[in-house]
């Protein structure tokens, strides 16, 4: 039936779904989590741009934050016989079945941004992305360093990401691990701000009313930190001084706030992994060996560093 239908519609114009490799281009099927944040959008754009530059045909799918959709997309990539599949898993677990199908179809898989917890490591070729736990830890370590000579208790409030999401879980974990080094550091309140500015602001308003003395705010991303900034200002406190603010991501607005002295520290989580990914795709397609884990180039920023790099930040 496939043949027949194919023959009948052979003159169809936009035959983009055809078997790969007709023109020698590598076809990459990429399933993105969604467009839930500016970070994510930057990530998508980076991947698209890099694919264009590298001469790779990209089949981009947006899963709208649903694992089911990602699995569907991967199945369809398999049907379309793409050369390489890459995806940013919505959650860590639950990929074995569909990855096995990809393996059976001889399509190599690359994970980006988030890892999966599959026991069978042969199901994917490599992982490229950031380590959320590490980001949390970097943030915590900076704080420990800063408060090394603090005598009294240091009260921390935490703005978590969406409850149950991987970055929220891991950043919380990494941060908690790091600050355990100093018993003076105490998280007095921790709530979910859903990774949004509005959420961060709303939660911070209540934190400020419920806790007379807040020394440090740790926000799981810049946006919540930026929202909290407004709440802090409205409460008549000076962000960056009365309350030290530590965030993660380093998006442009966040870096601006850091440069302005309103934030104190940002651990970077770079979305710009497109070029690195395309390198990997080419290697994997050519059958070359690749490392099992590729970390994106990331760093941390203090206020001075932010001032220095801000003018030439793309994102």
């Amino acid at each position, binding site marked *: 039936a496939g043949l027949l239908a194919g023959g009948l519609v052979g003159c169809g114009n936009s035959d983009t779904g055809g078997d790969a490799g007709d023109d020698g281009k590598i076809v990459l099927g990429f399933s993105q989590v*969604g*467009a*839930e*944040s*500016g970070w*994510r*959008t*930057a990530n*998508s*754009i980076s991947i698209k741009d890099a694919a264009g530059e590298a001469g790779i045909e990209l089949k981009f799918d947006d899963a709208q934050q649903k694992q089911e959709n990602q699995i569907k997309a991967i199945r369809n990539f398999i049907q379309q016989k793409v050369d390489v599949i890459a995806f940013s898993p919505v959650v860590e677990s639950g990929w074995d079945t569909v990855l096995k199908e990809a393996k059976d179809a001889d399509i190599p898989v690359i994970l980006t941004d988030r890892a999966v917890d599959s026991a069978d490591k042969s199901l994917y070729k490599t992982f490229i992305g950031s380590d959320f736990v590490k980001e949390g830890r970097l943030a915590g370590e900076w704080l420990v360093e800063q408060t090394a000579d603090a005598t009294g208790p240091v009260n921390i409030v935490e703005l*978590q990401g969406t*409850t149950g999401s991987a970055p929220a879980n891991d950043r919380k974990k990494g941060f908690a691990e790091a600050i355990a080094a100093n018993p003076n550091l105490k998280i007095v*309140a*921790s*709530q*979910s701000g*859903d*990774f*949004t*500015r*509005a*959420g961060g*602001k*709303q*939660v911070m*308003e*209540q*934190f400020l*009313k*419920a806790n007379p003395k807040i020394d440090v705010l740790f926000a799981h991303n810049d*946006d919540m930190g*930026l*929202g909290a900034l*407004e709440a802090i200002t*409205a*409460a*008549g406190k000076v962000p960056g001084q009365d309350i030290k603010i530590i965030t993660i991501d380093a998006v442009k*607005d966040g870096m601006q706030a850091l440069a302005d002295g309103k934030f104190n520290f940002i651990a970077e989580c770079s979305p710009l992994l497109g070029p690195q990914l395309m390198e990997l795709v080419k290697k994997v397609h050519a059958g070359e060996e690749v490392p099992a884990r590729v970390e994106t180039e990331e760093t941390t920023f203090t206020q001075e560093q932010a001032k220095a790099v801000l003018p030439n930040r793309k994102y």
Partner: protein
Amino acid sequence: MSTARTRLTAATGHRLFWPLVVLLVLLAANTVYRPSFLSVELKNGHLYGSLIDIVRLSAPLILVALGMSLVIATGGIDLSVGSVVAVSGAVACLYISEQPDQNSIGGVLTALALAFGVALLLGAWNGTLVAVIGIQPIIATLILMVAGRGLAQLITSGQIITINSDPYKMIGVGHLFALPFAIIIALAVTLLVAVLTRRTALGMIIEAVGGNAEASRLAGVRSRRITFLVYVVSAACAAVAGFMMTANVSSADGNAAGLWVELDAILAVVIGGTSLAGGRFHLGGTIVGALIIQTLTTSVYAMNIDPQTALLFKAVVVIAVCLVQAPAFRARFRRRRTPVVTPVAPAEKQKEQVPA
């Protein structure tokens, strides 16, 4: 019996009584947890305190829920309000961000007018699908709910547009007469909707259409026009809510702005005593409903309830709200308490009966 008692029964019989009780209980619980919860102070000439926060934060929800009340009264539902919030906020912020002087009042007003116009168009789209083409409201508005969010992200290119405009910011966090401006807007819109529906015959006609569309049509009501209108009003309310939400954080987030607000709005309407089947609607109830929902959210933060269990807490409160409101539920308890009404002695009247 004393008049105090009859007055009490009159009060407990009032539609708003039980929702208000729930609201007060929630506030009381917060006060027990943190006695300063109820305190309101004057800081820099602005009222400041958790109570004020609650009202200010519920302002957008109140707006959306007002529009939703009208839609629900016609027997419809509007799932697209969240997307309209996002689109209107995005359009306004995009326009302002492109102005050379973001603080110019003229620029901000143009932005508002533009965004409002777009929202009206979206409302008209919904209205057309439901009233003219006759698609079931839930599906008709689902289309815009999905596509509208895409539209909002298209407008913002998936980024968060940050603006720096004091006049615009005023909508979300400004103050007027020591009161947050958002509260004043919500009050004004509430008054407007109330006057529009209760001082004209619009309210009754909406209720007639929702109560029995065919009968209304045969009574000469232009039910299509009314149905169309309520979707436009709903979108307009959502647009203003969108301005408020984006102004609150001085940025437009196509993805997050107004996410799930449709559920909250419907919940507010239902808590307020309006039936999803259409017919009678109660604006006062809707507002109390919106306040309850916001108080609930704020309580989670203020009482520092673990985010992992916050939803369980919400579930319990929502169920409690609807249980105490349900006459059937209260009747079950009352029956146990008050004795059966003693039958009135049959009237002294001659009755005739024939033998069998």
